[in-house]
């Protein structure tokens, strides 16, 4: 008889069985010099970086997964950069820009001297070719297409000046111009098909690293661009990158990633799982850079046309009934922050609404009681024969989703609310979300601009709450998209966050956080404003 396949349980339990060994390994590994006393940065060497999934496609303009964006960021420069500390848009390929009054026309003045790795100059016509190229990709450039939704055209004013026009106010475009999704590729790149570019064929950028090789499911190798000297002024040093090579190793198994770092087979890893964090936060020469993602936090996005969620008081009670610190403390780690608004704290124009998001079980129960919901025999409340119950649709894009939702389910049970948890594949979840056939959606979106709220809440875009057109939220969302002036934009962005949280159109829970671990020999692996990797200042000490 052939052997039967291992049971599901055993496969699920395998990491747990292996864990005690992993911990032993980590303790046994000799710690070198800590990153803190590594001395001045040293040029040269290779960074072996363990990432959790195959990038599938390498063209930064086409990709939308973290793995691929973390590779693509190193290959291209953008018109602007964004300061991770302040959210301000700062020079990069363009040293100056002007925006017209209603944010429909953006004129960029390019810095002299930047060239693509095939030697051609980064001039206005190259920028135009690149932006037209992104638009031509259509839905293949999911992120780019959403940033350029109302893109009309690019105009070469002179070799160093390019004007980009939109058919509707697009304040968010200024921040979008700092992302790798709108990074500039050389004109020659567009002679290749979108599919060839995905595989790295003819993929030519002006970034601090150039594409060298891609073995799917195994590794991506990038090499230093010699002669690079037009980096963003935000970076710690100017000139060329320190590293000769970046070797992204694709290691899907979290236990193998951590063990490989602990045993010196890798220099740095991404996506450290909560259970593995203590291994590297305890010192031993290891460091753990973390940064919360800007954008929409993980939340229960309510469809206000469905069942009990049509009642504002029910939604507000659910928000009060969720103990956010308990979620981050039990299922996650201290690196993950409880949500304090619908936007993450790292998002420009974020407003602290933590008072509205405090845990208040008594308040939730009182709200429901006054609204006529009384506890039934099983503890779940009912009103006129209707059970206080709603389902949440989620997919496993983030490993801890299921555990987080199970805990929220227990918390809500205490106030007499029955949350049903429904795991779906990505495709199914997308389909349900498109059809509007859901009570709650569970998701997060990374974007370092408050306009992401318009993308998800406005009745003119995806309208995930299924609100009626012309509601007050629409008005403020449109206001914030009409000006790039932060001072003018702030009140509208703040009002939008307040409306969403107070009306509980979506119920924020926690901020997704990027957790890296660096070995004793790696330093300077940083995050840009959208919490993607920036490796320009990264270096390895001689080992």
């Amino acid at each position: 008889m052939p052997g039967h396949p291992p049971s599901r349980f055993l496969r699920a339990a395998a990491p747990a069985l292996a864990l005690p060994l992993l911990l032993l390994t980590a303790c046994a590994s000799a710690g070198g010099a800590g990153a803190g006393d590594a001395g001045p940065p040293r040029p040269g060497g290779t960074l072996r970086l363990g990432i959790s999934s195959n990038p599938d496609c390498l063209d930064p303009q086409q990709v939308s997964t973290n793995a691929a964006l973390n590779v693509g960021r190193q290959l291209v420069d953008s018109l602007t950069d964004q300061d991770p500390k302040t959210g301000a848009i700062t020079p990069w390929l363009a040293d100056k820009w002007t925006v017209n009054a209603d944010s429909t026309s953006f004129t960029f003045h390019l810095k002299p001297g930047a060239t693509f790795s095939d030697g051609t100059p980064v001039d206005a016509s190259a920028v135009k070719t690149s932006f037209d190229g992104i638009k031509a990709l259509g839905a293949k450039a999911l992120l780019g297409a959403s940033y350029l939704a109302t893109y009309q055209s690019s105009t070469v004013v002179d070799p160093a000046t390019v004007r980009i026009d939109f058919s509707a106010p697009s304040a968010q475009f200024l921040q979008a111009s700092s992302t790798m999704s709108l990074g500039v590729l050389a004109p020659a790149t567009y002679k290749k098909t979108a599919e060839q570019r995905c595989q790295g064929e003819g993929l030519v950028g002006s970034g601090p690293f150039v594409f060298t090789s891609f073995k799917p499911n195994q590794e991506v190798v990038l090499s230093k661009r010699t002669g690079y000297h037009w980096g963003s002024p935000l970076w710690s040093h100017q000139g060329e990158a320190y590293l000769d090579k970046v070797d992204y190793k694709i290691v899907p198994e979290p236990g193998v990633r951590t063990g490989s770092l602990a045993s010196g087979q890798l220099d740095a890893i991404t996506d450290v799982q909560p259970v593995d964090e203590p291994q590297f936060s305890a010192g031993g020469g290891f460091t753990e850079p973390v940064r919360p993602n800007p954008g929409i936090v993980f939340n229960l996005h309510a469809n206000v046309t469905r069942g009990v969620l049509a009642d504002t008081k029910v939604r507000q009670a659910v928000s009060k009934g969720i103990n956010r610190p308990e979620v981050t403390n039990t299922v996650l780690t201290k690196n993950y922050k409880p949500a304090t608004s619908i936007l993450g704290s790292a998002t420009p124009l974020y407003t602290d609404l933590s008072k509205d998001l405090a845990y208040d079980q008594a308040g939730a129960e009182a709200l429901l009681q006054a609204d006529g919901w009384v506890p039934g025999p099983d503890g779940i409340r009912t009103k006129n024969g209707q059970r206080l119950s709603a389902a949440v649709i989620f997919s496993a894009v983030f490993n801890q989703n299921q555990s987080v939702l199970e805990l929220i389910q227990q918390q809500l049970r205490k106030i007499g609310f029955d949350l049903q948890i429904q795991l779906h594949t990505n495709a199914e979840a997308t389909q349900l979300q498109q059809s509007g056939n859901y009570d709650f959606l569970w998701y997060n979106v990374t974007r370092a601009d408050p306009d992401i709220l318009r993308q998800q809440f406005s009745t003119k875009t995806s309208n995930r709450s299924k609100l009626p057109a012309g509601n007050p939220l629409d008005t403020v969302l449109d206001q914030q998209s009409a000006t790039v002036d932060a001072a003018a934009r702030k009140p509208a962005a703040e009002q939008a966050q307040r409306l969403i949280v107070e009306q509980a159109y979506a119920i924020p829970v926690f901020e997704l956080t990027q957790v890296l671990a660096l070995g004793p020999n790696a330093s300077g692996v940083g995050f840009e404003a959208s919490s993607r990797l920036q490796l320009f200042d990264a270096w390895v000490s001689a080992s």
Partner: protein
Amino acid sequence: MRVHPVVRRLLQAVVVLWAAFTLSFVILYLLPGDAVLTKLGNAEGGITATPQQIAAARAQYGLDEPILVQYGKRLLDALHGDFGTSVSTGDDATHMVLTALPPTFAVTGLALVLAVVLGGGVAILGTYTRVRAVSQFLLSLPPLGTSLPTFWVGLLLIQLFSFRLRLFPALGANGFASLVLPAVTLALPTGAIIAQVLAKSLRTQLAEPYIEITRAKGASRRRVHFGHALRNAGLPALTLVGVVAGNLLAGSVVTETVFSRDGIGRVTTSAVTAQDIPVVQAVIVLSALFFVLLNLAVDLLYPLLDPRVAVVRERVTADG
């Protein structure tokens, strides 16, 4: 109507390939969602594609045509060896499969050699030894070997031989050293199957009358065991080739993930998850082709090894 047996086998093979192609298409088509939805739903944290964008993307990939038209086009292209372009990677599906085959064959090939040595050794020693305790111990290993989860064995081997003893790399594919751990992981369950079948048929052979006669004629114990019984017992084990190859391929999904290697297992799992029809079909049809050829080779070889079997007879299978 008399058809030459070899021609009949070839016709059967064609039917098998067509069935594999069609079934994989139907199953993927029936699953909720499609490759475009998965790709757009995969975006970092639920960026939403508009319904217009989704429709446009479907048109780009020809997923908006009626199912029969899609099927017909795909079948015609497949006859020319063209399975289309992967939706998730943009690479040619056939190219992806052909690139992934060598690393998988390297691991499975080494695993097969180890499995034959291990499994054969256990079965032969277990039936040859006169010490009951040794025999019982050895023959209790195969059931154990088939029941250990491959995943767990792999992680354990990495722990011990890579993280602790630093003898072999834990990840990637760089030369022979990186083949050892995944091959051993894969060889254990496969070796166990070989051992079980071989031990069983060795015992059956040793109880046959001809063995008594050989012994009576004065042949040594070793000669009886290796010269006669093993030769006859080895043949049914040969028909296991298909089962073993299937087992190795299935196991490579797990070993490739645990050992961070590229290969057919990884390509298949991500293609199925992404509902990437071109890649799934390329994998299934090319694997079916491989199995058809393998079985055909076994069938054609068998009569040469065992004159009692004629080509026209149905294949003998081991009663393992």
